[in-house]
């Protein structure tokens, strides 16, 4: 057959078309061939979150036949207890829930894998996640040991209905620490008997972290405290004075307070304000509703200090065990957890505001997003606009810092230590 260009054009163009059409399926087929086997995935949460993640896992497994995500859910305190033993026994699940407060215990022992190779290969995309959040998720050696999925900025949450009924002015959008403490003392004068202006400053360490950060200091510099003792003396003094002014829930009551947000004195209407993570608003509002009250709770960002904003934003993250024997599947599931629109819709910011900007906007735009979740998302957007402070925490931060702070606050409130003595003790025990 003589050679003829026109006769070749048709088959060639058809072949090109076929090839172009088949590229994506071929890649998918390759990807699906790569994804097989199983991984273990462990996280902290309760029944509601567990059911959501169960749906997400089922969706992922449906999309990737031949893969299994073995779920290992636990409640918060039990989770860390088991994770510590699993780490000691070199039996960490491939993917684990992680927080900046806890990562040092695992990262310092080389138990976690760097996600950077998966980012570089495109297996995991961080395109929709704020570079600041990604930077804050890096360990001191620069390795990316956490993938941030749920930001839980802390707020001053207060009962707007109670404030209005008592004639208390709402917290302004921008205010400093002095204004905050003055607001609490002034509020107490207008509140009914047996209702206090605020509960405890030690539910979690975030308010103190913001106080330190807003004075221009790091909480830790390596293994030593990064702020002067005077800052802590001032901090304890503020609470001591609030307590002396009758503006705090009494110390003997605080020592008996249940841990769950719904069961807190704040949810029970015994205090006007409380420091709470923004993602606890749904639980708190549920606690208010459970006692037959229609009170509305609102959130306000933390006060600013002499050096500006000091908020540290705890971000719930995923980490990968260095011992993980199925990295492709772990990476694919982590990417799905972070970026998949359908997964994001199922999870609905259950553990902090979704960090993927596109999913965040989609949830904000969704009219069906419940009010407490919307408040969380908007708070996170405000924090992003206002800025936050990155912090790194040493190993055993919870026991060295959080628990010590909690105990010393109570000792100051009970009057067994002066603010100066409490600060001295803190510096002895926290370093």
């Amino acid at each position: 057959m003589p050679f003829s260009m026109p006769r070749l054009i048709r088959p060639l163009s058809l072949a090109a078309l076929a090839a172009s059409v088949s590229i994506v399926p071929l890649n998918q087929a390759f990807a699906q061939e790569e994804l097989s086997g199983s991984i273990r995935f462990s996280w902290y949460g309760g029944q509601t979150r567990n059911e959501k993640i169960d749906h997400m896992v089922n969706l992922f497994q449906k999309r990737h036949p031949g893969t299994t995500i073995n779920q290992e859910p636990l409640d918060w305190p039990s989770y860390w207890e088991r994770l510590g033993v699993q780490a000691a026994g070199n039996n960490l699940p491939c993917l684990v829930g992680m927080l900046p407060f806890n990562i040092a215990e695992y990262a310092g022992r080389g138990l976690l894998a760097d996600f950077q190779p998966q980012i570089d290969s495109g297996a995991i995309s961080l395109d929709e996640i704020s570079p600041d959040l990604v930077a804050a998720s890096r360990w001191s050696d620069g390795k990316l040991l956490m993938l941030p999925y749920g930001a839980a900025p802390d707020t001053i949450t207060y009962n707007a209905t109670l404030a209005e009924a008592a004639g208390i002015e709402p917290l302004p959008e921008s205010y400093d620490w002095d204004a905050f403490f003055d607001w609490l003392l002034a509020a107490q004068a207008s509140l009914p008997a047996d209702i206090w202006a605020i509960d405890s400053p030690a539910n979690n360490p975030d308010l103190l972290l913001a106080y330190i950060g807003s004075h221009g200091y790091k909480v830790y510099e390596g293994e030593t405290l990064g702020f002067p003792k005077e800052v802590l003396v001032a901090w304890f003094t503020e609470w001591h004075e609030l307590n002396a002014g009758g503006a705090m829930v009494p110390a003997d009551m605080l020592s008996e307070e249940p841990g769950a947000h719904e069961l807190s004195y704040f949810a029970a209407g015994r205090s006007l304000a409380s420091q709470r993570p923004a993602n606890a608003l749904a639980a708190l509002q549920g606690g208010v509703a459970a006692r037959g009250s229609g009170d509305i709770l609102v959130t306000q960002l933390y006060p600013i200090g002499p050096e500006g904003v000091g908020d540290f934003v705890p971000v719930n993250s995923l980490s990968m065990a260095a011992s993980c024997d199925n990295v492709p599947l772990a990476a694919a599931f982590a990417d799905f957890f972070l970026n998949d629109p359908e997964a994001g819709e199922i999870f609905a910011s259950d553990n902090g505001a979704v960090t993927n900007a596109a999913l965040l906007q989609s949830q904000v735009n969704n009219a069906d997003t419940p009010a407490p979740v919307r408040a969380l998302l908007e708070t996170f957007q405000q924090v992003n606009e206002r800025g936050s402070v990155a912090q790194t925490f040493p190993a055993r931060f919870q026991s060295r810092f959080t628990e010590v702070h909690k105990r010393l606050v109570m000792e100051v409130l009970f009057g067994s230590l002066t603010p100066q003595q409490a600060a001295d003790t803190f510096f002895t025990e926290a370093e």
Partner: protein
Amino acid sequence: MANADSRPAGLAQRILFNESPIATRLARHVPILLLLGVMLYPVLWLVGASFSRGAMLGGQLSFLPGDPTIDNYVQGWRGIGAIGFSQYFANSLLISIGSILGNLFSCTMAAYAFARIEFPLKRILFAILLLTILLPSQVTIIPQYIIFNTLGMVNTYWPLLIPKFTAVDAFYTFLIVQFIRGIPMSLDEAARIDGCGHLQIFLRVILPLCAPALATTAVFTFIYSWNDFLGPLLYLNAPRLYTVPLGLAQFMDATGTSMVGSLFAMSVLSLVPLIAVFAAAQRLLTDGIATTGVK
């Protein structure tokens, strides 16, 4: 003896001198009933809260639910995802029964050996056994976990059951040893004259007489296994293997929304087997602690 006419006429005196049986009974029983009320109040509150909408979040003192509902039971029984709470009950039951069989098998044999058989280093070994009672379990957690992980047994029930078949619960061994020591040696000697060896003496003479101690061991093992949280927490990863205490913990979420009503409801249900077992074995339990082998 005092003259009746000279006795004072007050209630206390009448009670003291047993003049009014009804008054005496009242005076004795009212304080006891009051104490019973104080002791039972938390349980009654729990039961009331389990039928309450919002699970008495207001911290009210009354244990009567204002607007009773069984929703907490229905929701709680659903469990996690596809795993209902009945699965947790079945798992707890399996582990508890396995633990009872293990302890009865291993502790009785170890106890017989210590009580009736002479062997080298017996006293030292028995002292070591008693010392293990004083050893906090936390000390052995990580080495034990590493061993079971190396054997590939994590996420199975074996780490919770195998130790029971190796007489690690020294308290029960000690209890049965003391019980066997109360059984006259003449019974063993009579059996030996009839041609019995240690195994037959153990099975035909000692074991039947140890029934109260075995019941005590079984009941306490059941209570401990049923309530054990740390063991299942460390060794059971998959929710389908979870026991009742782990299942209950799933209702609490420090980082989100807790389901307190379901927690109360399932807590009430989790008490039922404990109360049933305790009630059924109450008499034997008392005998096991308070008596010896021969009546």
